[in-house]
């Protein structure tokens, strides 16, 4: 098994959906990790590509929950780190 088969990061487009002259194409990004007799897949929505009569617009899908969770974790880690540094200085 080659390294690119073990770890694969790809962006793919789904089936086109059409309504009242608007064509939308969903996009997803997946991370695939394979190992002998097992594997892991992380797949998430990335954006929707909207086509209105030739004008194309890309609307990103923002995972607000993930941003808040990682933001809170990052802030707590920063406070923990700064607290440790300040305690040593005193």
């Amino acid at each position, binding site marked *: 098994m080659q390294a690119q088969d073990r770890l*694969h990061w*790809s962006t*793919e*487009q*789904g*089936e086109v*959906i059409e*309504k*009242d002259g*608007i064509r*939308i194409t*969903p*996009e*997803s990004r*997946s991370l*695939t990790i*394979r*190992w002998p*007799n*097992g*594997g*892991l*897949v*992380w*797949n*998430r*929505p990335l954006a*929707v590509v*909207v086509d*209105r009569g030739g004008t194309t617009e890309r*609307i*990103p*899908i*923002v*995972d*607000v*929950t*993930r941003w*808040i*969770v990682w933001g*809170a*974790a990052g*802030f*707590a*880690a920063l*406070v*923990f780190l700064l*607290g*440790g540094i*300040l*305690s040593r200085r*005193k």
Partner: protein
Amino acid sequence: MESGMGNEQRPLDIVSQRITDTIGRLFDIARPGAVFSEPVEAEGYIAITAKEIVTGMGMGLGAGSGEEPAGEDGKPGSGGEGAGGGGGGYSYGRPVAVISIGRDGVQVTPVLDATKIGLALLTAWGAIAITTMRMRRFSRRSLG
């Protein structure tokens, strides 16, 4: 008379093949179709749910056989064989957004996971509170 034993698959090979097939199906969720739901039409709108999926799986199996050495009386020893396997997996899905197509155009509305956000904020608050308490205790010791 031919026994035809050569064409028969051993149980271990059958299980191994099933494991390979199951793991192969795991990677089907890497397609966009797994993340975006089928479009639902109602009141002039089309709605599609977008979700995040994480799936992991691992399996293993092994087999072995052995023969007891011949005894002092020259009789051949008895033999035996055994096989075993196990596996485990994890799957997780969470809605991320709802895409709606209608008269107003295309709208992407984020879906908030209140439980996850609440737990994250509570954990962060806990970590900050512990750090603040430790800093205060340290300051008191330094002053004293």
